[in-house]
């Protein structure tokens, strides 16, 4: 027998199930328990940059909305900096900018939305700039391992074309599944981002 490598194995994932809200968003499950629920304010009051709303549906392989899905958001601020000690410049991130949030659906329709600021571009690997993007993590009943994807913005065409992550996707047609569509509504900038778990135009999910 050779020597053993004393690494541990990652704990295997299990579905978040239909009652994920009890743990992560109890108000949505129908009761108040914590003084403060986490993940309800992504950007905070002091964030620089453009205020935006992002909305969409998660759609299953039959074309139906996934009404019990929960999403988590992770994004940089408008300068392209994450509020994390390993990211250069993090000391400059605005007070109250978490960059993280939890998004639940309307249980009747499956529609979800969140308010934030548009993130800035940031340096990726090998000196290549990444276009502005929001990282999403999607869990629900029937999803055995949380799904990772990225949301990019359709008004950043030039940056998107040069983005090293988008360009990893071999099929140009599939790249479009990561681009949110901008519109203006009542003076507000809204990006639409529907996520298709399966079937025609299946969203690109990443193994990160």
């Amino acid at each position: 027998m050779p020597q053993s490598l004393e690494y541990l194995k990652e704990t295997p994932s299990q579905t978040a199930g239909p009652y994920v809200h009890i743990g992560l968003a109890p108000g949505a499950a129908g009761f108040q328990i914590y003084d403060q629920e986490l993940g309800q304010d992504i950007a905070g009051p002091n964030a620089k940059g453009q205020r935006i709303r992002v909305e969409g549906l998660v759609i299953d392989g039959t074309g139906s909305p996934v009404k019990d899905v929960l999403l988590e958001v992770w994004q940089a601020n408008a300068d392209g900096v994450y509020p994390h000690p390993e990211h250069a410049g993090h000391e400059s991130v605005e007070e109250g900018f978490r960059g993280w949030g939890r998004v639940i659906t309307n249980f009747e329709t499956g529609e979800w939305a969140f308010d934030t600021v548009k993130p800035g571009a940031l340096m990726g690997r090998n000196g290549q700039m990444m276009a502005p993007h929001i990282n999403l993590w999607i869990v629900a009943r029937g999803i055995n391992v949380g799904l990772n994807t990225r949301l990019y913005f359709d008004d950043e065409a030039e940056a998107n074309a040069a983005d090293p992550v988008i360009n990893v996707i071999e099929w140009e047609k599939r790249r479009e599944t990561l681009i949110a569509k901008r519109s203006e509504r009542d003076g507000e900038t809204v990006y639409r981002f529907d996520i298709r778990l399966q079937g025609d135009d299946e969203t690109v999910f990443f193994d990160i």
Partner: protein
Amino acid sequence: MTQTPKKQGEFYQRDRRWHPPAFDKDYKTSVARSPKLSLISLENTPSEITGPRFGHGDMTPIDNDLLSNYAQPDQSPIGERIIVHGRVLDENARPVPNTLVEIWQANAGGRYRHKKDTYLAPIDPNFGGCGRTMTDENGYYYFRTVKPGAYPWRNWVNDWRPAHIHVSVFGTGFAQRLITQLYFEGDPLVKTCPIVATIPDPEAVEQLIAKLDMNATIPLDTIAYKFDIVLRGRRSTLFENRLEGN
């Protein structure tokens, strides 16, 4: 604390054969909710290496005590009083300190406090069913709760979930984000459950079974189970693999 290398690099790739596949015909809800195309493999960038951070200011000390965090004054939920405790480690067996652990579960009768749960077992007026805590500097965490009951669910006609507690953990980077379920040693329903069976390797299933821990049990008061959680580990950057932007 264990020694930490000077600079940490990328996360070890996730062993997708250790985790359940997205599609499992016997867990019926997964059939229409599983991507059919392959995941696109990404090398880590700062977007994956970084992740949200939490502090004690985000919660109150009682949040990890499900026996009292929703109970009326001087009352307790019905059920077997248990402590669930353990450590959050990474694949290098190093503790993950100051990370957020959240749990949720059914009450002792197998009923969730959720507007979508209609099982006929009663709601317990003294039990909310969720808790949260931060690991300490050694990666240690604990909760006090009641042992959840088994309950039926619609998959095949006669499926029952084993007693379980849902567990959500963060780590330091968004790439470590994990939700799983804790099961209990000796529960015969573990072997029958299609959700447990989504995990291909029986050894991986064992990793989700909390062990009775008599040494942590409080005599005449509360029984204890130990449940360690392992998150993805990181490379030591002995030879620089150029991860820019930090």
